[in-house]
């Protein structure tokens, strides 16, 4: 990671932590404003994750710790590698280099199935729904309830309805209608419902509110916080910094495939976040000084 341990202004203790033993993680809350309570344990740790697509370096030595019970916002410009990073975690892409630790243990995530078994649930930026299948079938795809070798629709339909109701998804005509007939926001709600329905330990949401209306967005943001309050680790990707600062406990900023900055959300404001997102660093000493001062 790029952090110089002595440069506390533009980098946070994330860099330090990545050098220390993973087991020490929770004993090192540092100056985390919101993320420092004792119950915040690191669920997922990435170390030196790199991913190339032919000549393109999408990820370059990314180190990231994701604590349980906290919302980690992953931000960065278009093409920074955010979606690629979460696809590595979700088993869609296998990293070229690097290690993944789950509750401190080294794991391999080679397929989406392995990620699901670990307890990762993901809302993809492109939603990844089957338009020809109905809402229930999409929500339970790969997780079907089986009895006597046959699909058991009743519990699936009840659970789907319950989850959608809890998300206040009310505008769908029937949960047996094909997803292809839904509006963009409804589709997004289905994707979110699918991810939060199970008992995942880590919920990843790539642009979960991009297509949502005002009230539905508020609902999803509230849900994100409720998930975290329930002890689940949440990673949210969003271009909407209002949303980010509304829910995030921690912020991680990607720039051209490198994780250039991460730390408690309170260490950042919109201006500094935008600057790091676009340039990869904070420019002026004043900025750094102001940020350090703000934290002290």
């Amino acid at each position, binding site marked *: 990671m790029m952090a110089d341990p002595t440069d506390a202004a533009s980098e946070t203790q994330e860099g330090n932590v990545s050098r220390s033993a993973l087991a020490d993680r929770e004993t090192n809350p540092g100056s985390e404003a919101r993320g420092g309570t004792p119950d915040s344990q690191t669920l997922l740790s990435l170390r030196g994750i790199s991913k190339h697509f032919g000549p393109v370096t999408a990820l370059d030595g990314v180190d990231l710790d994701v604590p349980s019970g906290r919302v980690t916002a992953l931000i960065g410009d278009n093409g920074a590698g955010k979606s690629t990073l979460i696809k590595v975690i979700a088993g*869609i892409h296998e990293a070229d280099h690097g290690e993944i630790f789950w509750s401190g243990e080294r794991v391999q995530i080679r397929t989406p199935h392995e990620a699901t078994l670990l307890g990762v649930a993901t809302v993809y930026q492109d939603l990844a729904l089957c338009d020809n299948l109905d809402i229930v079938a999409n929500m339970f795809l790969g997780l079907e309830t089986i009895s006597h070798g046959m699909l058991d629709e009743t519990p699936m339909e009840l659970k789907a309805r319950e989850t959608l109701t809890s998300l206040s998804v009310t505008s769908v005509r029937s949960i047996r209608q094909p997803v292809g007939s839904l509006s*963009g926001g409804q589709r997004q709600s289905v994707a979110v419902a699918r991810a939060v329905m199970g008992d995942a330990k880590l919920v990843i949401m790539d642009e979960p509110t991009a*297509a949502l209306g005002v009230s539905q967005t508020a609902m999803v943001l509230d849900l994100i916080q409720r998930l975290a309050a329930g002890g689940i680790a949440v990673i949210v990707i969003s271009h909407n910094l209002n949303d980010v600062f509304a829910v995030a406990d921690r912020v991680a900023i990607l720039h051209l495939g490198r994780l250039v900055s991460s730390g408690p959300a309170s260490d950042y404001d919109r201006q500094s976040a935008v600057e790091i997102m676009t340039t990869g660093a904070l420019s002026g000493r004043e900025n750094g000084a102001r940020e350090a001062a703000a934290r002290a």
Partner: protein
Amino acid sequence: MTTTDNPHLGEVVAPPEIEEETAADQAPLDRDLMALPPDASVNEYITAWFKRVRSGQSGVLPVVGGLIVIIIVFQIERSQFLSALNLVNLLQQSAAFIVLGMAEIFVLLLGEIDLSLGYSGAVGAAVMTILAYPPINLPWEFAILAGLATTATIGFAQGQIISRLRLPPFVVTLAGLLFWEGFLIWVINNQSPSNGGSIRINNTVIYDIVNGNMSVTAGWIVLAVALVLFGVVSVTRDRRRRAGGLVAPPLALTLAKVAFVAVGGIALVAICGINRAVFTGTTVRGIPWVVPIVIAIVVMWTVLLNRTRFGRYIYAIGGNREAARRAGINVHRVRVLAYTLAGLTAAAAIIILDSRTGGANTDTDGGQIVLYGVAAAVIGGTSLLGGRGKMIDALLGGLVIATIYNGMGLLSLSADFQYMITALVLLAAVIVDAVSRRGQSSA
């Protein structure tokens, strides 16, 4: 498709109180009814159904309507068209198209195609014929199993090549078409060099698949058992849904559905019960064995597609392969299994075809019949783009093709007209499909 081109992005949502969903009675693809309140009456269901038909969302109705028109035209032209003899003949003709259509549906649902099924099926049928023929004289059960296994293995191998090497199914199965045509000619000529490219079916059971009939009494008994089973399954399924707190169609509607099927079944058995002997003094009556066999295959594969994980995954992959992969589905395994089952079913189709003609032939036109199989599926309403279709589509489409084929024969129209008319029907079916799809997406 994606969220970005959707016009409802900024939609404000209604207050938190979810609307009751309707009783789509089974798996996601059997959505015969639109959203209705849980206490909807039979009348409301019927109105909703008509609305659906009018908006072009009912795939089955245009085909059935078309079939009725074709039948009326032929009946006006040739009064013997609706005779018991000809109707049974028509059922026998349609069987191979229907079963091959079902074979093709396994891969069409994936958005893929298998052009080799005609010849790979013919190879399986030839293996069966050879094994049942002297000097081997294998019992018919084993000969048939070996034939089915042969083509299933061919499907498995081609599926592996397509999926592992990521090759286009069209090209791989086109190569398969040529290869298995060559192999068919080789194996028949090699086995029976002096017979002019054919091997007679030497086993009465295999010959009787199409040419033999159940006794009329047996026909009624089988029908009664099947109807009772169907009724019990339909009613208990609704009851279980209601018990689980879900909505199910009113009992009267379910019973009406069962009654409708019963009328069809009774008509079928009654017509087949009429003596259709060509020579006076003899009697030929009863349902040809192939009819219950085809219906059993339809039911079996429908259950597989609608009620099992594998079936669900076929639809998922056809709808969005990447989404299926991300949901943790082993896409490779499902695709290979689909090609394998397509092979198995294709062998059954050509076994039926050979049973009808009485032998395995080098001049079996596997290239043409496989396209009839695809046409049957598409005429019935299965989409070539994947993700949409049912096994029953092959039944309807196969009947349409056989009806044209049969009626043209009665009118003494030659093959040239048969081809052209079949082509027009296929084109009409695709147009109906495209138009109804457009209506759906703009709805």
